[in-house]
């Protein structure tokens, strides 16, 4: 059942990616509109697949890298569609949608962990911890992708050489506003997710912070975003610096998510969830 939904999701995400990339290249409104519709349909299938999976597992499917990719891509698409609805930066779809499509593909390719899962994971607190963190990271991912666009556009205007991107990308002010909004929404969500996680750790493991690689790296990313937000609000940092920092933060989060999960070990790593040492 979940497999059918997932295949449909994948199909929809790849079609939407093609449409958004076509929109980016040809700048035709229709591509973008249809793309958003296809993406929304994909999100509906994705939601159904996640509900079925959660129901049959009795917990949120975040025990393996594949499973978490599936959940994270869902939050990313949701965040993008919410942004799409409120914010006129549509070309972002050309980056965010393929990213989500790749994540879902990854989820399907990576081996699923059917082994016994630590009972710690089935708590509602873990759901909230993961949910908030993922929502935050999704928003910050969009900020990072927007940062890429900002840097491309700013470079052309500064160097006075107008190439491929100049005509296709929105104005600097819009891209910077995207950075600001994603940061102000994503940062509190991530913070909330981290606080709940550490409270739950104190309650179950007896310590707030265990110097687990994932925790350390997330804390570094969090600090990058904290500095950025602070400087934005106090001295008005914006533009290139804000874009660069958002991109750095995104990079650290990416390493945290994929790297720490697979290679570094620790109780947050995906291998530890499936009962293996």
């Amino acid at each position: 059942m979940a497999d059918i939904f997932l295949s449909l999701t994948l199909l929809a995400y790849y079609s939407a990616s093609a449409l958004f990339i076509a929109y980016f290249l040809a700048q035709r409104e229709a591509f973008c509109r249809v793309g958003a519709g296809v993406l929304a349909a994909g999100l509906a299938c994705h939601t159904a697949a996640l509900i079925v999976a959660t129901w049959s597992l009795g917990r949120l499917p975040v025990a393996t890298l594949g499973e978490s990719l599936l959940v994270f891509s869902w939050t990313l698409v949701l965040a993008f569609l919410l942004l799409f609805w409120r914010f006129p930066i549509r070309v972002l779809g050309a980056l965010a949608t393929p990213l989500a499509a790749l994540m879902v593909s990854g989820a399907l390719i990576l081996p699923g962990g059917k082994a016994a899962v630590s009972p710690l994971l089935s708590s509602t607190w873990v759901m909230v911890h993961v949910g908030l963190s993922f929502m935050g990271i999704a928003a910050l991912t969009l900020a990072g992708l927007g940062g890429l666009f900002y840097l491309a556009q700013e470079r052309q205007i500064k160097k006075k050489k107008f190439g491929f991107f100049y005509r296709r990308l929105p104005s600097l002010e819009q891209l910077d506003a995207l950075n600001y909004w994603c940061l102000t929404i994503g940062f509190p969500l991530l913070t909330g997710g981290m606080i709940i996680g550490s409270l739950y750790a104190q309650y179950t493991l007896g310590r707030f912070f265990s110097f687990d690689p994932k925790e350390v790296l997330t804390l570094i990313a969090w600090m990058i975003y904290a500095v950025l937000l602070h400087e934005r609000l106090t001295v008005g940092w914006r533009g290139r610096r804000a874009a660069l920092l958002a991109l750095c933060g995104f990079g650290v989060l990416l390493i945290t998510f994929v790297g720490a999960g697979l290679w570094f070990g620790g109780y947050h790593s995906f291998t530890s969830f499936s009962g293996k040492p």
Partner: protein
Amino acid sequence: MNLLLAGVNHQTAGVALREKLCALLPEAEVSYPLLLAYPEIREVLFYTTCNRVEVLCVTDAATEARARLSTFFASHPEVTAADLAESLYLHHDQDAVRHLFRVAASLDALVVGEPQILGQVKEAYRQATRHKATGPILNRLLHKTFSVAKRVRTETGIGDHAVSVSYAAVALGKKIFGDLKAKNVLLLGAGEMAELALEHLQTQGVGRIVIANRTLERGLRLAERFGGKAVSLEELQSQLLGADILLSSTGSASYLLTRQQVKAAMRRRRQRPLFMIDIGVPRDLDPGINDLDNVYLYNIDDLKEVVAENRERRKEAAVQAERLVAAESLKFMDWLQTLSVYPTIISLREKAQAICQAEIKKTLSHLGDLTPEQVHALEVMTESITSKLLHDPIVFLKRNHHRKRGEAELALVRRLFNLDPGQPEEPAEKGKE
């Protein structure tokens, strides 16, 4: 049936004659009744844009219509026939279609790719329809024209690049700010170039305008004209804090603003982006300013380079557009040609019907009393014989109608079936008789 287009434009006529024609040719209210009164003209469209005055008509008698259009252009005593002889151009059929497409797609314009022209043609067409001057052919042609113009715009991107310095500045501003509404402008110096740029900025709905000039009097005058505020150049530092766009054209011997000054100002502005345009020669602003974050400095050479690049791009786009226009005008002529076979098909059918009826009448008078069913059967039989006989010629006319051979084929068919009995026969055939 022919299409005929006559007119003058910026290439054939000097500005004096164009102005005269624009001013002296009667208004649409008078022109259309005048043009439609000519019996040779079936449909007509009359339009003027900044650089042209043109009349397009559908006619069955091209030579007479040509003379009529010339008279129309010379209808005012101040326009002499000699003026027109040199500058009036005439395009027929496919050339006329192509010309209209090129005008509407702004390929025939002084500045290729400027978008206003399509609007002017649309407005002219609206006027023509109000006067019921257009018919099936011009209606179809104009709708095709609008779609071709739109395709040229979207597919070649011909209008995407600004080709004047002030437009380029506005376009850049939009890429920085998204929208120039409510952005504050600070003008240094009150030169002519600055005024021009300021005019462009004002059409974009910018916010506050502040003019800082060495002589306050001239600054005040300009400020009054643009609804802004005049300050002295000494206040530059403090005025810089509130501005989003700075336009400088004093040509002062030394830099009015150095990198350090702008850097300090940016900190106080909390890094709000600043777009600086330096059109002064020698430069007013330290070029090092462009290295600062969130400050974008363009001098006159940068802008000119942008414009030159854009001109090149438009030229490339124009080549692509010409190809599109040529293909579309050919397609339209094909349609027009198929239209021209219909009268022949109709007369073929009419002739066949007339023969059938005459023959039935003759036969019935010989046969004496017949039941209505028998009469009906006879009628059906003759009709089906003729329609089967005519089927192939009609299909031939419709399908094989060829652009070049078309006229000759049509004439042959008409002669073969003797559809124009009044026409004199060709001499060779006469000899045989």
